[in-house]
C-alpha cells in the first residue's frame, strides 16, 4: 500500500465546469466526493469513478480520477468489472434515482447481492431532470407536475434503502446534500467498509422539484450506532420516514472476489482457434 497522499479536495476536482442548474444538490455531492477522496489519502490513479446517464451521472467528468461515463443504468456492471479486473483500485459508481433504480434497477439488486467491494452513490431527486421533469421510481404517487402523469403516478415509490437491504447490500447510509461534510464522512465510511456500500443522498432538483428546498427542514439524524443485523436494520427501516440520515446498516458479509487464476495459457487458447 502506498503512503497517504497530501492531495486536497481541490486536487480531485477537474477543470471541467459543471453544467448543473444553480442550486442543484449535486454541486454539494461533488464537494462531498472530493473531500472524501482527499481524506482517503489515495493517489488519483488508484481511484475509478463510474457513472450511468443523467444529470448526476456527469459527476466523474468533474473529478480528477479515472472516470467512465457509461450507458444508461449500467454504471454498476461496469464498476463491478473494473473492480474484479483491478482489485487494487478503489471503485466508486454514481448516478441518479432513475438511472440506478429504474433503468438500472435490476443491476442494482444484483450488485447488492453480489457484494463486490465498491461504493455506489445515488443522488436522489425523485425526478428525471435531464429529460425535463418526469416521475422517477422514487417519486411520490401524488406528484402531478409532469404532463406525463397529470394525476400522479398512483404507484408506491421505491424505497432505495429498504431495497438495498433486502437485496443484500453490506453497508447502507443516507445523507442530505445540504450537509456536504456529513455526506463526505458517509462516503469515506462506505469506501472503507468491505463489500458493496450504498450511499443514498437526498439531492434536491430545484428546477423541477423546487419544493425539495424544504428537505433541509425534513432531514434528521438517525441512531448513532448503525444496525449490524439485518433484522434490526429492517425493523428500523420499516419505521423510517425516508429522511433519516447517517449509517443505517453496516453488515459483515465478506465481499465477493473470485479467485484469480490462469485457467489456460495463450498458447492453449490459440490452439483451440487454429485447429
Amino acid at each position, binding site marked *: 500500500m502506498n503512503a497517504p497522499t497530501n492531495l486536497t479536495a481541490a486536487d480531485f476536482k477537474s477543470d471541467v465546469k459543471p453544467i448543473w*442548474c*444553480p442550486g442543484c444538490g449535486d454541486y454539494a455531492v461533488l464537494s462531498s466526493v472530493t*473531500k472524501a477522496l482527499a481524506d482517503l489519502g489515495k493517489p488519483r490513479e488508484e481511484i475509478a469513478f463510474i457513472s450511468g446517464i443523467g444529470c448526476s451521472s456527469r459527476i466523474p467528468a468533474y473529478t480528477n480520477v479515472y472516470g467512465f461515463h457509461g450507458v444508461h443504468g449500467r454504471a454498476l456492471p461496469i464498476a463491478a468489472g473494473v473492480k474484479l479486473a483491478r482489485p487494487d483500485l478503489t471503485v466508486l459508481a454514481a448516478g441518479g434515482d432513475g438511472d440506478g433504480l429504474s433503468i438500472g434497477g435490476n443491476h442494482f439488486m444484483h450488485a447488492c447481492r453480489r457484494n463486490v467491494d465498491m461504493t455506489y452513490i445515488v443522488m436522489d431527486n425523485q425526478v428525471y431532470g435531464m429529460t425535463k421533469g418526469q416521475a422517477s421510481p422514487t417519486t411520490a404517487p401524488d406528484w402531478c407536475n409532469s404532463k406525463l402523469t397529470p394525476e400522479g403516478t398512483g404507484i408506491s415509490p421505491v424505497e432505495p434503502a429498504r431495497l438495498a437491504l433486502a437485496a443484500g447490500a453490506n453497508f447502507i447510509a443516507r445523507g442530505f446534500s445540504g450537509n456536504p*461534510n456529513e455526506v463526505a464522512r458517509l462516503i469515506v465510511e462506505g469506501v472503507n467498509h468491505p463489500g458493496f456500500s450504498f450511499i443514498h443522498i437526498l439531492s434536491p432538483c430545484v*428546477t423541477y422539484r423546487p419544493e425539495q428546498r424544504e428537505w433541509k427542514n425534513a432531514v434528521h439524524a438517525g441512531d448513532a450506532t448503525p444496525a449490524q443485523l439485518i433484522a434490526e436494520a429492517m425493523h428500523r427501516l420499516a419505521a423510517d420516514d425516508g429522511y433519516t440520515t447517517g449509517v443505517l446498516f453496516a453488515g459483515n458479509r465478506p465481499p465477493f472476489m473470485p479467485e484469480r487464476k490462469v485457467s489456460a495459457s495463450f498458447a492453449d487458447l490459440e490452439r483451440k482457434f487454429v485447429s
Partner: protein
Amino acid sequence: MTTDIATFLAHAVALEQEAAERYAELADAMEVHNNKEVAELFRKLSQFSQLHLEEVKGIAAGYELPQLKPWEFQWQDGESPEAAPSERTHYMMTPYHCLQLALFNEKKGHVYYADRAYKATDPEVKKFAQLFADEEAEHVVMLEKWVATVKPPAEGWDQDLDPPGDAE
C-alpha cells in the same frame, strides 16, 4: 499540541476558504447559465473572501493548526456559516438577490464569531473571535449600503419565456 486558539483559527481559515470556494462555484454556474452580471458579482465576492482568507492565514501562521476532517468542524448547520446556501440561488437571480445572499452570509458569520467570543473561556480565542465578529459587523454594514444602491427586481424576475419544463 492542539490548543483552543489553534482549533478556533482552523475554523476561521475553513470559514473563509469555503466561502471563497462556494462563491467561485456559483460564479461558474451563473456563467454556464449566461447570467454574466451575477457571475461577475459572485466572482468579486469570492475574491473578497480570498483576501479575508489570506488575512486569517496570516494571523494563524504562528500556530500549529489541527488537521480536521471536514465533518470534525463544529459548525451549527453542518456547513461553515459563510458558505452561501445553494438552495437560495436561481439561474435568473439578479445582482440584488446576489447581494442579499452575501448579506445573509455575512450576518451568519457575524453571529458565529459573536457567539464564539461570548462563550470562549480562553482569552486568546475571545480576543480573536471578537476581532473577527467586529470585522464581520463592518462587512454587514458595507453590504447593507451596497444593497441600498441596487434596485430590487420587479415582480416576475424569475419568469422564463423559455422555461426548462416547456418542451416536455
